[in-house]
């Protein structure tokens, strides 16, 4: 419980810094920090595979691509400044944020929780594999199509014109 508190706090700190920092590379690195904490949270909950997959896929692959693109596009330049055209959006954004936070707080504080015990070995690799290839086989296959569509879509959007 204490461990969870520390990790949760750290994850929050990373998330806040990620949004607050002006430097895109730092922002990406804070996000990675957040992902790593999240992975540790998964592991403390007994889902080791999920935690490591999170690191492998997000910290190791997705964020590397992020950093790659950031470094590629903005090497040496500082983060963009907020122009005057966007100034009026700031109060609106704050209002929307406060509203969402209020809604979530209202929801969380008034929540009626009925904890149910997780099935044995929940989160283990064997459990996950079995769930993916039996119960959720169909969504799993659809995910394959989803990735294919994303792949084709990206090629369509970025390829050179003949």
């Amino acid at each position: 419980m204490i461990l969870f508190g520390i990790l949760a706090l750290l994850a929050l700190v990373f998330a806040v810094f990620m949004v607050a920092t002006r430097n895109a590379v730092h922002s990406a690195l804070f996000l990675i920090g957040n992902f790593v904490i999240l992975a540790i949270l998964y592991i403390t909950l007994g889902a080791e595979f999920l935690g490591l997959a999170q690191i492998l896929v997000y910290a190791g692959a997705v964020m590397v691509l992020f950093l790659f693109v950031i470094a590629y596009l903005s090497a040496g330049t500082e983060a963009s400044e907020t122009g005057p055209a966007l100034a009026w959006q700031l109060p609106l954004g704050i209002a929307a944020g406060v509203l969402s936070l209020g809604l979530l707080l209202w929801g969380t504080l008034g929540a009626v929780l009925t904890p149910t015990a997780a099935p044995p070995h929940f989160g283990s690799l064997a459990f996950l594999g079995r769930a993916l290839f039996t119960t959720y086989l169909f969504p799993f296959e659809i995910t394959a199509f989803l990735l294919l569509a994303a792949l084709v879509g990206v090629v369509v959007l970025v390829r050179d014109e003949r």
Partner: protein
Amino acid sequence: MGQPYLRLAAAALILAAFVLGTAAFLVWFERKLLGRMQVRPGPNRVGPGGLLQPVADILKLTVKEDILPEHADRPLFRLAPLMAFVPAFAAFVVLPFGPGLVSADLNIGLLWILAVSTVSVLALIAAGWASNSKYALLGGMRAAAQMISYEVPLVLSLIGVVLAAGSLRLGRIVAAQAHLWFAVPQVLGFIVYLIAATAESNRSPFDLPEGESELVAGFHTEYSGVRFAFFFLAEYSYVFLAAAIATLAFLGGWSGPFLPPVVWFLVKTYAVIFFIIWLRATLPRIRIDQLLSFGWKVLLPLSLVNIFLVGLFRFI
């Protein structure tokens, strides 16, 4: 309660000493071997056969000035060498040197090594970016492109092994090869793994991120002193790791007749390391576009074919 933590701490200390010693030894090993292959003696002044040369190098590096480039991103510049080394060290934690000779026997050990070691790529990009130098940046970008491209065939080639062994626990994988090394039925996977692992650890002929003739020294151009030593350490740790995984996953791990398991493990690992150094002495560096298209168009399909074959044989 205190017992497991104590054990872990002791294991960590021993591992740290081992990693340092191995890296130092590997530096000597490589220089000596390259020297022999190029018909020259190699280091031979400090200690017997030049064996203490790395010690002298380490001493030299620690007393050297730690230079921070102007307009560098200071916190990131300082953090990057650690980000490179810590994952490499963390990966050693699950490495079994013999039956039971392992700091933490995770049931997903192989995945742990793969996951943790990917974090190093971030360090290379961060180092390249934070240095505020075009050579370093180009080196970091190349490292990212290369490591992402070769990560995929690397992982896929190991999936064949995992499929055949039915576990991600390294001990189980070794046990599953009691009768036949996986390198024999999965020769395709083994070849893909060796190539991809060489590329993952940025070794020649895939050492583009630090190609001297074009990028000075790549991502660590601006680094000096101890911080440089950390990158060095990380690189040699990965060479050892790559060879160790090849041993565990394809060459039957520590199993072998007569000699004690640890010796077998080290002998096999060093044989693989010898092969990797041999490659460096023999092959010229390839171009970045060749490197990427080779990774995606040749290695990736081959590793998929390997998985398919393994699955097919297991199914039958």
